[in-house]
């Protein structure tokens, strides 16, 4: 009975409409209901994609300048790529290696440190547990970008005594590790909370130590969240400019963001645009592929983290 009522209402309303208006042909109905949505979708996708099309075509465009670039290249060639890879004043491959090593190390160590902390907060009960969680929440509100001045001064004075720790690649990794606990501990704790404690208890009964439980059970079952936060953290540190810009000043020590911004900064925007586009493509393509492959998890993880923290 209840299911009939709304249908009945609809029937009445359409009946009354037919008395005032003529019945619409099916294509018009399609346009009003679905067609305009396609139009909006196509416009939105065009807006989303045209910078990307522009980069791809500029990278393939042998003219290599900004004013010679357009949405469609006239002749496709790999000229810009070979120019960029053989340009001694802009050592792109060094930048790429620096970015991979710095971001890679920072990400892996950070993840490990925060999953350790998350395990302790999730599974153990100790004094200052609540206080510790709260402190982490508080600290992560302060982006280290804001203390870039003192981070720099601090490593200058450390470098006066230990030259290998002067502002540079090694000290940059240390700076990134400082934020390890703040960024992901809450998210991971939330995830580990969902792993049933019965698993740990059974293992304890079988004589497993806390380390065996951590490395053998928790770390394995937390793999999805590690992958997700790992990708986000890695791209996050690729994007870090403020500190890297001050710490990495020599040509071969730069990361991609510092190097590429120098390539098209300072009046050279036009001249080197083709090479920049080639570099942008080589940098962006792997990340885009990874993001698209993991999109479901990445977007899901973001919402979850926001709700839980």
């Amino acid at each position, binding site marked *: 009975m209840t299911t009939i*009522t*709304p249908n009945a209402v609809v029937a009445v309303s359409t009946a009354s409409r037919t008395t005032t208006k003529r019945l619409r042909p099916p294509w018009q109905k399609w346009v009003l209901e*679905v067609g305009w*949505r*396609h139009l*909006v*979708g196509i416009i*939105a*996708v065009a*807006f989303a*994609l045209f*910078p990307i099309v*522009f*980069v791809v075509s500029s990278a393939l465009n042998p003219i290599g300048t900004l004013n010679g670039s*357009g949405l469609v290249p006239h002749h496709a060639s790999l000229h810009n790529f070979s120019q960029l890879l053989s340009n001694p004043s802009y050592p792109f491959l060094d930048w790429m290696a620096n970015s991979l090593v710095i971001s890679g190390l920072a990400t892996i160590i950070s993840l490990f*440190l925060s999953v350790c*902390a998350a395990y*302790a907060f999730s599974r*153990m009960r100790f004094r200052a547990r609540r206080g510790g969680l709260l402190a982490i*929440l508080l600290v992560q*509100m*302060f*982006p280290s*970008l*804001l203390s870039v001045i*003192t*981070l720099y001064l*601090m490593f200058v004075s450390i470098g*006066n*005594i*230990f030259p290998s720790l002067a502002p540079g690649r090694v000290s940059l990794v240390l700076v990134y590790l*400082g*934020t390890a*606990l*703040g960024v992901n501990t809450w998210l991971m704790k939330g995830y580990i909370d969902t792993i049933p404690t019965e698993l740990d208890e059974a293992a304890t009964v079988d004589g497993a130590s*806390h380390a065996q439980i*951590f490395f053998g059970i928790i770390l394995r079952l937390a793999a999805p969240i590690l992958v997700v936060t790992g990708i986000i953290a890695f791209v996050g540190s*690729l*994007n870090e*400019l*403020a500190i890297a810009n*001050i710490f990495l000043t020599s040509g071969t020590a730069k990361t991609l*963001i510092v190097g*590429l911004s120098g390539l*098209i900064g300072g009046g050279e*925007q*036009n001249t080197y*645009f083709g090479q*920049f586009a080639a570099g942008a493509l080589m*940098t*962006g393509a792997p*990340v*885009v592929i990874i*993001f*698209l492959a993991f999109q479901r998890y990445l*977007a899901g993880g*973001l*919402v979850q983290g*926001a709700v839980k*923290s």
Partner: protein
Amino acid sequence: MPAYLVKMGLLAAVVALAVYSLPELYSNHEWLGFGAVVVSTVVILWVYLSRKRIHLKYLVPGTILLLAFQVYPIAYLLQISFSNYGDGHFLTEASAVAAIVQDSVQPVPNAPSYSLAVATKGNPADPKANFVFFLTGPTGKIYIGTPAGLSSFPVHDVKLSPTGSVTSAPGYNFLGPIEVNNLGARLADYSVPLGHGEFIRAVGISSAYVGRATMQFDQRTGDFVDLATGVKYAPYRGTFVATNGSGDTLTAGWRAGVGFSNYTRILTDSSIRGPFLKILVWTFCFALISVVSTFAVGLFLAIVLNHPRLRGKAVYRSGLLFPWAMPAFISIMVWASMFNPQFGLVNTLFHLHVNWTGNEWWAKAMLLITNLWLGFPYMFLISLGVLQSVPADLIEAAHVDGANGYRAFRNVTFPLLLLTVEPLLISSFAFNFNNFNMIQLMTGGAPYSYGSAIAGSTDLVISYTYRLAFGGQGAQYGFAGALSIVLFIIVAAISIAGLRRTQAFRTMT
């Protein structure tokens, strides 16, 4: 067993690191670093050599890094914000006094000049060896000059060059011109006192003159007196200021506390207040407009494309994801190039002649358009996820109650959506409030229309602060530190507001 060996190996490495670094820190009088290394090493050993304290085994490494590289820099920043640290104020007070005395040395009129030779009892090629001056006076008398004073040297023991300078003397090895030159600052700072405030100094590498400092420092009062003019200079917050009311200062300053003056300067110094308030207002506008525009477009697209009879949803979705998947720094640089007023795609494609980078308002529009492009796909994804998770029977119930599609959305879907995305919107606001990359990579703060070369009209507070500290205009660490602390407080206030929303959300569900 291998696990045990790994653990012991790591602990040994920690101890080795401490043993290596402690003597260096000690000999450089770096007591803070010394204490930090001692405490961390002791804590690490105390935690990991015990069978108890299991939770600490999982917390200690991250916590040490957190304290060293995130908490301490904030405390240090707070300290610096109450000082004048920066260009012109890097020295200690004692070095500043020495530098002022040194800079004020003038040749004494009518005093004799000397031919100079430099000799050592050690190896002349060693730039660190102790050395003395052999001086030939205008009358041909030979002197030996040391930091202790001047004394005459028997003429018949030495050999002279044609210009009169000493070339050899018993018991001394003479430095060649290149070796003398290599002494650098050690030679320039070497002075042979003659009494009455006069002393002999090298000028170049082969002659010396009698000089006298015109600035005299009074150890007792801590003041300087300019002997030439009689003006007195008293120390005030790291600078010597003339006491005659002229406001003249001596160039070398030192690092000193300045109280709250860096903070009050933001509001009282008229050359800073104007630009700063404009920058602050723009920072709020930039963050707010960015959040609202990305959310509005993202939500709109999610609603439009979340229709049951729409085909090709997956294609649209994937297409819209590209801006989100691309590393943001690449996208920003590409957009910056596309907005190039002369050669950029935006002007050529749409046949525009807009001066995107030179006009303040167009530059702001350019930043907001780019940020919309960067941010809307994320908002689209989130909104889509929430829309799809709103229970269908809730909507149906609304329809049964007589709500049309719009009312059902307005009163059922939207409140649910907002509840979920509110913390995200706040964190997006906090992020954009400090969106340094956007400004640095796109405009660099330009155009500079506030009559200042440091405050740009598209600057956010963070990029302005960065330029004060690291820009080419001279490092103002103290003032930039105070601005950073202000930013910290604003960001914390925003984040705490966000946090309370989430807790409200938690208790509601």
